[in-house]
């Protein structure tokens, strides 16, 4: 069974070497795919230097676009199992195995920062936004998720196939991805994971843009009709 790590990276040359070597150290047989989202700091050179598969996009498409390309590559190559991993070093590679073992009884596994009383701190406005999203996703999918925006996820082949074509490309892609997977009848499960502080780079969320993205997401929710889940 071939497993791949999809690492979307936008100007993460500083933290990427560490992330790659940590994954390599723990899982030498995993294929590491770095999707360079139009970086200007030589992120793709680092990926090539480390002998990773490097998909470099000619300009920045955002994390959703980068992920979709990663899924597409996995699909073309017939990868059985893939997980998404942040290039900024906030994900803990020791948690990968528990995420992957979760795939034995579900199609998609989400690593949640909040499933247990872990120490991940977020600001007030982000907290409110996350609560609202959680509520929406719960109404829509009928399933309770504690962390809808987690970027630490693993997928089985059928989900990879779906996401290669339909992964949402706008910001807040992670929430929309949950909805799409659920709509297509895939079983999603959530497990608690530990996260670290960001080791380098800037957080990609800006509060003043949140309202716009919220509205967009609401429209997406309203526009898509809820389908009954397959058993």
């Amino acid at each position, binding site marked *: 069974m071939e497993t791949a790590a999809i690492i979307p990276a936008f100007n993460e040359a500083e933290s990427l070497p560490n992330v790659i070597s940590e994954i390599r150290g723990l899982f030498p047989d995993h294929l590491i795919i770095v*999707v360079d989202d139009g970086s200007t700091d030589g992120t793709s050179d680092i990926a*090539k230097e480390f002998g990773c*598969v*490097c*998909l*470099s*996009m*000619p*300009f920045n*498409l955002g994390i959703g*676009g980068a992920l*979709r*390309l990663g899924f*597409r*590559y996995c699909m*073309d190559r017939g990868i059985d199992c893939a997980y998404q991993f942040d290039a900024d070093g906030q994900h803990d590679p020791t948690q990968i195995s528990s995420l992957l073992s979760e795939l034995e009884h579900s199609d998609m596994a989400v690593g949640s920062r909040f499933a247990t009383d872990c120490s991940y701190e977020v600001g007030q406005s982000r907290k409110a936004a996350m609560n609202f999203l959680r509520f929406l996703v719960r109404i829509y999918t009928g399933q309770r998720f504690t962390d809808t925006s987690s970027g630490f996820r693993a997928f089985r082949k059928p989900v990879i196939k779906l996401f290669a074509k339909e992964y949402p*490309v706008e910001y807040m892609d992670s929430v929309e991805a949950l909805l799409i997977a659920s709509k297509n009848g895939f079983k999603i499960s959530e497990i608690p994971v530990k996260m670290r502080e960001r080791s380098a780079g800037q957080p990609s969320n800006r509060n003043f843009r949140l309202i716009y993205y919220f509205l967009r997401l609401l429209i997406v929710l309203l526009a898509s009709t809820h389908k009954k889940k397959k058993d």
Partner: protein
Amino acid sequence: MSSSTHILIAVLALGALFLIVRLVRLKALKAKYSILWLTVGTALAVISAVPQILDWTAEKLDIWYQPTLFLLLAIGFLLLLAMHFSYELSRIENRIRILVEEISLLKEKLEKDD
């Protein structure tokens, strides 16, 4: 509308028609869009030449102030056009995205073969 206004509109309409034809000939405007604008330009020219058309239609529709009809039609048309452009833009955005994916995959393949 006074006759001088009609002359102004006629001149503008003819100017617009001339510009459209020129742009199409320079291949700066796609023929499919030019049809649209040519139609609008012609309609404007006709209305300015024979303003009775507008008066007559307004009367039939019980519109008391004729220019209202003209503005209503203009706004309606522009709204539809803007919607059409948003649609085209969405489609083009999607296509560019797919092209970017293809290019990146091909680039990776090329570099691997080297």
